[in-house]
C-alpha cells in the first residue's frame, strides 16, 4: 500500500499534465510538418512551413516587436517593483494596505484592464489627453494608439499590470535577508543606497535570478492584453510573436471568414518557443554567477 500511495497522489496531476500539456505539444510537433485547415485530411508538406516562416516578414516583424515590448517592460518593471518592495519591506503604518493596492492590478482580468486603458488613451476623447490638455502639458491630442506611440502605451500598461506581482516576489526574497546585515551596516555608517547596492541586491542574488528569468519568459510570451488593447495594430506595430501564433489558430477577423492554419501555426509556435527558450538559456548562461553570492 505504501508503495502505491505516492503514485496515487501524483496520478491526477500527472494525467492532467499528459492530457493538457504533453499531448498538445506532441500534436503540434507533428502538425508543423502538415498543412491542415481543421477539417479533412492533413497534407504532409515536409519543411514547407518552415521555409514559409523564413520568408514571412509579418512574423519577423512580430519577433522584433516582441523584443521591444519585452525589453521595455522588463527595464521598467523590475527596478520599479524592486524599489517598491524595498520600501514596503520597512515597518510603517499602512504598508499592508499599500501592498494590497499595488498588487490589485494583478488580479484584474487582462481584457478588462485593456478596455479600461483604451478608454483612457484613445485619441478622440480619452481621459489621458483631456487631463494633459487641461493642465496645458500638451496643446493638441496625442494619438497614443497611433503608429508612433502604440508600443510605448502598450508597454506602460503591461508595466502597470506587472509591478505589483514582481513586487510581491521581491518582498518574499527580501524577507530572507537577515536583519543583522543591515544593523551591522548601519553601525558602520552605511546610507540607504549603499545598503541597497551592497546588501539587498547581492543578497537577493539567486531569487533575483529566478525572478528575472520568470519575467523574461512572461514578457516574451505575453499577448492577451495586447490582443484586446490594440489587436496588434495599427498595421502590425504592436503585433507580438504569440499573438501572431494565436492568429494562425484562431484568426481574428470581423468581416471576412478566415481559414485556420493549424500546420503553419504549429510551426510558428515551435519557432517562437525555440526563440523564448534560447533567450532564457542565454540569460542563464550570463547570469550564472548570480547564485554564487553566498
Amino acid at each position, binding site marked *: 500500500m505504501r508503495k502505491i500511495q505516492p503514485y496515487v497522489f501524483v496520478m491526477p496531476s500527472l494525467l492532467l499534465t499528459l492530457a493538457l500539456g504533453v499531448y498538445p505539444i506532441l500534436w503540434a510537433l507533428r502538425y508543423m510538418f502538415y498543412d491542415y485547415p481543421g477539417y479533412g485530411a492533413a497534407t504532409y508538406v515536409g519543411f514547407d512551413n518552415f521555409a514559409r516562416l523564413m520568408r514571412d516578414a509579418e512574423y519577423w516583424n512580430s519577433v522584433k516587436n516582441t523584443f521591444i515590448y519585452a525589453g521595455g517592460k522588463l527595464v521598467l518593471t523590475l527596478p520599479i517593483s524592486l524599489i517598491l518592495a524595498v520600501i514596503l519591506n520597512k515597518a510603517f503604518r499602512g504598508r499592508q494596505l499599500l501592498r494590497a493596492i499595488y498588487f490589485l492590478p494583478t*488580479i484584474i482580468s487582462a481584457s478588462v484592464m485593456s478596455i479600461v486603458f483604451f478608454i483612457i488613451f484613445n485619441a478622440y476623447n480619452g481621459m489621458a489627453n483631456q487631463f494633459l490638455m487641461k493642465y496645458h502639458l500638451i496643446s493638441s491630442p496625442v494619438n497614443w494608439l497611433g503608429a508612433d506611440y502604440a508600443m510605448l502605451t502598450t508597454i506602460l500598461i503591461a508595466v502597470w499590470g506587472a509591478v505589483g506581482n514582481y513586487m510581491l516576489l521581491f518582498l518574499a526574497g527580501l524577507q530572507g535577508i537577515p536583519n543583522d546585515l543591515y544593523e551591522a551596516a548601519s553601525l558602520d555608517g552605511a546610507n540607504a543606497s549603499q545598503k541597497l547596492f551592497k546588501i539587498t541586491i547581492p543578497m537577493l542574488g539567486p531569487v533575483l535570478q529566478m525572478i528575472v528569468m520568470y519575467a523574461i519568459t512572461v514578457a516574451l510570451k505575453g499577448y492577451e492584453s495586447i490582443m484586446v488593447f490594440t489587436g496588434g495594430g495599427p498595421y502590425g506595430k504592436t503585433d507580438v510573436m504569440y499573438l501572431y501564433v494565436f492568429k494562425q489558430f484562431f484568426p481574428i477577423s470581423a468581416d471576412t471568414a478566415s481559414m485556420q492554419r493549424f500546420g503553419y501555426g504549429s510551426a510558428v509556435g515551435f519557432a517562437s518557443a525555440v526563440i523564448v527558450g534560447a533567450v532564457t538559456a542565454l540569460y542563464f548562461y550570463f547570469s550564472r554567477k548570480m547564485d554564487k553570492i553566498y
Partner: protein
Amino acid sequence: MVKQWGYAALGATLVIGLTACSSSGNEGASPDASNSGAASASASGQNAGEKTKIAYWTPDRHDAVFMQAKIDEFNKTNTDNIEVEMTVMADNYPDAVDIAFASKQAPDVLRINNLETYVKKGYITPLNSYMDDATKERFSSVLIENKNMIGGEIYSLPNTGQTWRLIYNKDLFAKAGLTEAPKTLDELVEYAKKITEAGKAEGAYGFASNFKSSSGFWRPSITVSTASGTTGAEGYNFQTGQFDFNSVKDIALALRQMKEDGSMLPGVESLDMDPLRAQFAQGKIGMYINHSGEPSVYKDQFPTTVNWAAAPPPTADGTIHGAINVVGGWYVGISNDSPNKEKAWKFLEYLYSLDLQKEYYENGYGVSLIPDVIEAASSPSTPGIEGFLPTKYDALYPDTPLTATEAALEGTKYGDVLTKYVVVGGDLDKLIEDLNTRYNAALAKARADGTTKIEADPDFDASKLQGALAQ
C-alpha cells in the same frame, strides 16, 4: 477599528473583482448544459408516441425574445408532435459548434456561421430533397453558389442580410452648408473637408472608419467598389477569375486623401466599430460606411439625438454601374447527425414562412432578403431603417475565393496593406502590383490543392444582378 474596516472594505473589493472576472466562466458553462440537452433531445426523439425534440442553436441574441415567443407558438400549434428547444449561445459560437460535432452532441438545427466550412466539415445536410417546387421557386433569385448552395446542393436559405450605405450626420452637413449626401468619391473627399472645417472646433470631423483592424478598409471598399464596377468584389474579378486590386484603388485614394486632409477623426487607426458608433452618436463624425444594423444600434445601444440618414454609397463617377454588395444569403441548416431531419425541415419551413419572416422584418430585426417578404411587408418601424431598405441596386454576389486564397497567402493581407496605405501613405500602384502577384499565386495554389473550386465566369456582369432582390 478603522484599520479593520479598511481591510474589510479592501477584502470585499477583491472578492467583487474576482467574482466579476469569473462570471465569464459561468457563461461559458452554458454550452455544456445545452449540449446535454441536445443529446437527450436527439435520444428522446427515437421514442415513438412521444414528442420529437428538435434542438436549435443560434448565437443571435438581438432577436432572442421574439424568436422564443415564435418557437413557443410553434410548439403549441404544430401538428407533427415536434417540440423545438432553442438555445441562444454565448460567445465563441463557432467553437461550441465544433466541440458539439466532435463529441456527437450536435443540435438538430443550427444557425450557420460559415456555410463553406460547415459543408466541408460535414456538419450540414443538403435540403434539396425536402424542398418542394414552390419553395425552390420562392427562393430561386437568391440561391447562390457558395453562399447557400455548393455544387447545386442547397444547404441553407437566406432570411435577412446587411445592406450597406453611407451614413451621414445631417446636422453637421447643414452646418457645413451641404444639403445632400456625396454621389462621387471626389465629393466624399470634398464634403469631409468642409464638415471638418465647420466642425473641428467642436471636435467634429468629416469621416471615420474602424481602422483598428482591416475591417476599416473592407467596409468602405467592398461597398464602393461593388457599386462602382461591374466585375467583382473584394479585389476578385469574377470574369477573369483572378485578383486585381485596382478595383479598390479609387476608394483607397479617396480614403488616403481624407486622412491627408485631416478630415478623419483623430485616432481612426485605433478605432473599433462600437467606439466609432459612440462618436457618431455624439455628433463627432460626419460620415462613415456601414450596414443595416445601424438603425437598431442608434435606437437601443447608443441612443442619439443626432439627425442622421443613410444614402447609397458614393461611386467613382456618381453612377451605380454594378450592384451594392449585400452580406448574407444563409441562415440555418440541418445537422447531418440529426436522426430527425424530416421534422427538422418542418421547423425550417416554419422559420422561413412568409408570416414569420414578414413579422421579423417589420419588427426591425433585420432587412429581409426574401423577395416575397420584401414585397409583402410594410416598412419596419425602426427609425432610420428607411435608408437601408433593399433597392434594385442591392444584390447578393457569388462567393469569392478570398478565404481559401488568404489561407495560402504569403505576406500581409490586402486589408492590412491598404489600411496602412490609408493611414501613412505609400506607392499605391506598387502595393497593388505586389498584392496582385501574391494573391494570384496563392489562388493558383488554393485551386491546385482543391481548397477552392471557384473558377472564372466570363459572363459575369454585376449590372445583371440589379433587381434580384427588389425593383
